[in-house]
């Protein structure tokens, strides 16, 4: 067994393998100082909650405390491997500043209280608002980090019980476009691909997807392919010099906000050269001629001008993609959080569709998720969708959902698409949403244009409930704070991007009076007296397993069919991919094999939207377009971003996720090894720009947009000229400011624009116009990581490179058996 510093070497040791072979097992373990595997009382099965890869692991418990983690060798997703966030993040659970008692606001201050008082205050307010204004006064905003059982309960209670249309999750910020893009192309959410496609692909194209930092274990799988025989070619689209870009055969670094032009250029080349599968197109798709017509307008020379990349590179990338025999395409925030998000992501689907690269080994599309349980928010109807992929504009689907819940169909709001969070903020701003219940997320740091968000959340006329594990920036503004249990302290299931369902079991008790989110929601539903049409309680379940059984019933016959899964089946073995039912008792690795889609007008999850205007497609229109339920090829023209560089703001700002921190750092900022690896915000710029502005590595600089400013130490990196990068989400909970800047801003979202993609309603974080000014010199290099996309471009002192604390040593065991396919 080898010991290795997994801060300095985030992806660990290579275990090379060739095309079509099994990915070797490597079991990663990290235990608290002084604890050996023999000391551990029991190992408790779970999966990662600090990124979206779905790494299966076991929690080590000793004396009723969590003392470490170990990867699960048998699991199909990670074959035993863990990422740095998995190895070290668990320590945050035991932080001394966990919330242990409910808090209520008294005389302007949050004071401790008991559960009865806190819940009664929420119930009284809810009832008063329902009597006075009705359900339109209440909004629910949740996360991508709870469990299916909890989302389903929340969705049932909010949509079916309260009857509000205002339900969304923060998956809106990370994965709304993934869902929307799949719905536009296939009439339904759910990934056509599987992680095992990495084992077979001969070309892997990553669009705006820095997988090395966002899903470290998936990147490990790709690195192992690259180190073995017959390595795949990598195409990378990213304005930063990421680890993916460094490994790429072709790296395209387009100007931020021009993804649709770039994709149209690639499609132009593929179509012009005839690298398409005409038979597949004829048999299984509609809309191809529109695409042909549209991309005619995007020859490489023109695209090169729009995107600022050489035309030859576009042709070369297109040629590699066009000649691929097994093409895996993945997409993430570089597309989802940028201008024309859905239109760009849909063009990636189009590449695989017109090349007939679907439903076969190595031929996949992974519209990635940003958060571990994002898929569940979408499935369970807690994020602006209806439960189990039901179509809000199909009356039969509403009636069916009403049957499952035993309520009147009119009680389920379906007059328009469920309200997305940015619109909910607008309704709170105009005073028509008067109570907002935020669970497991931190909008005061994660939403765009923070000064505006703070001013909305601070209003006296808004009753704010926050359910969380720490006193986050948002919780500090709340009227009632409910202390929640988290991963390792409660039981539930969650699903990763390739539809693999994992069980996460309770290992230890939550601290103090903290309660599982499921209990909190059920308690509220009962106190509110929410009933079905027979006068029985609307929420008929009482614990995780009974909630899971209820959720399964809701999914029966739907695309995300869970009916063949039980807690017992998930225990002990590996994760299972939905749909899992009588016909597919072991789950389904690939959907849409044989060109069969879930897009039939009677079955599809949505009729889609106009990719530019976002206007919903009418049912009659959809039926005329796609009567047989084929894949839908949707073309889109390039539209420039809404905020372009100007004389005052000559640069473009992009923000993004990084390797050592997750979300608003509530957990990773409290894990010593992770915190030390990336302790503070930084700003990246290119060496050319640094020269032009007279800025050196480590200088303190101020970044400004029309909305605010942030001060950060400079890292001169391999980023594209004219572009600045800020990592999210450094906030204020660990500064004197508490919930807001104390002097200079630190959160990237002080600067981002309030603007979103019209189709997916995902906010745009990656095209603000900005400027940078040097404030003062530094006393050494910036503390930005040197192992990742923020790697320094020039000469750099060896001793300042990122390495782990002495406690960062983790174990790696290779050669062990396991690794389900």
């Amino acid at each position, binding site marked *: 067994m080898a010991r290795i510093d997994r801060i300095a070497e985030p992806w660990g040791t290579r275990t090379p393998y060739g095309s079509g072979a099994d990915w070797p097992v490597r079991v990663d373990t990290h235990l608290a100082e002084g604890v050996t595997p023999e000391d551990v009382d029991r190992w408790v099965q779970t999966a990662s909650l600090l990124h979206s890869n779905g790494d299966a692991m076991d929690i080590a418990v000793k004396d009723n405390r969590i003392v470490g983690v170990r990867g699960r060798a048998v699991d199909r997703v990670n074959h035993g491997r863990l990422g740095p966030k998995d190895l070290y993040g668990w320590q945050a659970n035991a932080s001394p500043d966990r919330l242990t008692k409910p808090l209520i606001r008294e005389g302007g201050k949050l004071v401790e209280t008991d559960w009865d008082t806190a819940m009664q205050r929420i119930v009284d307010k809810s009832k008063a608002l329902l009597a006075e204004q009705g359900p339109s006064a209440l909004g629910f905003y949740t996360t991508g980090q709870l469990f299916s059982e909890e989302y389903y309960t929340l969705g049932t209670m909010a949509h079916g019980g309260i009857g509000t249309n205002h339900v969304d999750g923060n998956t809106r910020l990370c994965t709304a476009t993934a869902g929307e893009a799949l719905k536009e192309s296939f009439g339904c959410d759910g990934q056509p691909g599987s992680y095992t496609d990495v084992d077979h692909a001969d070309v892997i194209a990553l669009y705006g997807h820095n997988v090395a930092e966002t899903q470290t274990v998936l990147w490990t799988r790709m690195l192992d392919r690259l180190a073995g025989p017959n390595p795949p070619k990598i195409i990378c689209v990213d304005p930063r010099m990421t680890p993916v870009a460094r490994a790429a055969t072709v790296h395209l670094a387009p100007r931020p906000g021009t993804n649709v032009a770039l994709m149209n250029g690639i499609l132009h080349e593929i179509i012009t050269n005839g690298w398409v599968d005409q038979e597949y197109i004829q048999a299984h798709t509609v809309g191809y001629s529109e695409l042909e017509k549209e991309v005619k307008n995007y020859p490489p020379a023109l695209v090169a001008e729009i995107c600022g990349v050489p035309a030859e590179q576009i042709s070369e990338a297109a040629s590699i993609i066009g000649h691929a025999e097994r093409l895996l395409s993945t997409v993430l925030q570089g597309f989802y959080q940028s201008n024309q998000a859905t239109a760009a992501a849909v063009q990636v689907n189009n590449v695989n569709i017109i090349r007939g690269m679907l439903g076969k080994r190595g031929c996949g599309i992974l519209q990635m998720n940003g958060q571990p349980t994002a898929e569940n928010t979408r499935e369970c109807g807690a994020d602006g969708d209806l439960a189990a992929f039901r179509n809000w504009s199909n009356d039969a689907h509403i009636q069916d959902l009403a049957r499952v819940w035993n309520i009147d169909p009119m009680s389920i709001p379906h007059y328009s698409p469920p309200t997305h969070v940015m619109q909910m903020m607008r309704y709170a701003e105009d*005073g028509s949403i008067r109570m907002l219940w935020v669970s497991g997320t931190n909008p005061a740091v994660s939403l765009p244009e923070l000064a505006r968000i703070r001013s909305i959340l601070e209003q006296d006329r808004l009753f704010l409930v926050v359910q969380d594990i720490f006193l986050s920036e948002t919780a500090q503004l709340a009227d009632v704070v409910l202390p929640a249990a988290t991963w390792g302290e409660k039981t539930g299931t969650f699903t990763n991007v390739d539809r693999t369902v994992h069980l996460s079991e309770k290992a230890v008790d939550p601290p103090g009076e903290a309660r599982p989110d499921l209990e909190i929601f059920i308690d509220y539903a009962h106190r509110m007296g929410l009933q079905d049409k027979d006068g029985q309680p609307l929420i008929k379940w009482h614990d995780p397993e009974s909630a899971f059984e209820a959720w399964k019933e809701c999914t029966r016959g739907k695309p995300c069919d869970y009916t063949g899964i039980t807690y017992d089946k998930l225990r002990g073995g590996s994760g299972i991919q939905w749909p899992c039912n009588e016909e597919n008792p072991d789950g389904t690795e690939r959907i849409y094999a044989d060109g069969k889609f879930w897009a039939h007008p009677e079955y599809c999850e949505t009729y889609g939207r106009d990719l530019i205007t976002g206007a919903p497609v009418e049912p009659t229109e959809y039926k005329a377009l796609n009567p047989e339920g084929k894949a839908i090829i949707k073309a889109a023209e390039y539209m420039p971003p809404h905020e372009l560089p100007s004389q005052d703001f000559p640069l473009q700002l992009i923000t993004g996720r990084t390797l050592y921190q997750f979300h608003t750092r509530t957990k990773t900022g409290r894990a010593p090894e992770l915190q030390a690896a990336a302790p503070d915000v930084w700003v990246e710029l290119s060496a050319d720009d640094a020269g032009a502005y007279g800025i050196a590595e480590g200088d303190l600089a101020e970044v400004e947009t029309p909305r605010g400013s942030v001060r950060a130490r400079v890292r001169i990196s391999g980023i594209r000229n004219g572009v600045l990068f800020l990592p999210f989400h450094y906030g204020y909970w660990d500064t004197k400011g508490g919930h807001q800047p104390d002097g200079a801003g630190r959160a990237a979202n002080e600067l981002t624009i309030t603007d979103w993609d019209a189709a997916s309603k995902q906010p745009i974080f990656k095209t603000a116009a900005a400027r940078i000014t040097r404030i003062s010199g530094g006393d050494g290099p910036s503390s930005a990581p040197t192992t990742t996309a923020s790697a320094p471009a020039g000469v750099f002192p060896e001793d300042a490179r990122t390495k782990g604390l002495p406690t960062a040593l983790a174990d790696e065991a290779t050669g062990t058996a396991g690794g389900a396919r």
Partner: protein
Amino acid sequence: MKFGLVLEEMHRSENDLAHHLLVISERHKVDHEIYHLARDLARWSQQHVRDIADIAKNYGQNLDPEPRGEAGLMETIREKGSEMVGRRPETGMLLLRDLRELYLKACGVSADWELLAQAAQGMKDKNLLALAEKCHPQTIRQMKWANGKLKESATQILVS
């Protein structure tokens, strides 16, 4: 031939639609999707104005190729006004009225494109028909956007 009048009317109505989109954008600056999309969609109509002026020359019509300009001061006042009253619920009713008017204007322009396309077929003018085929779908998308926004906003505004 009365066709010159059709082009003139078309030119006027597209100009009017573009202007109305810009006014809506400014008046509802705090409704961010309305603000950004209305500006994007105004550009389609502005391009239509240029295209119509260009093709109208073939029919001896001298139409202004530049879309109707915006008064800079009024723009600022409308945007400021939007920000000042953005926290008051009454602005919702104004939004519904503006979207309703937009929808009707776009419907009118759509009908005009149909007239023009019919005439183009009668005159066997391929260029004119191609123009109608390019522009009319965009007008329909503008129409559907207004209609969709109207539906999406109405419930919250009317029952709150």
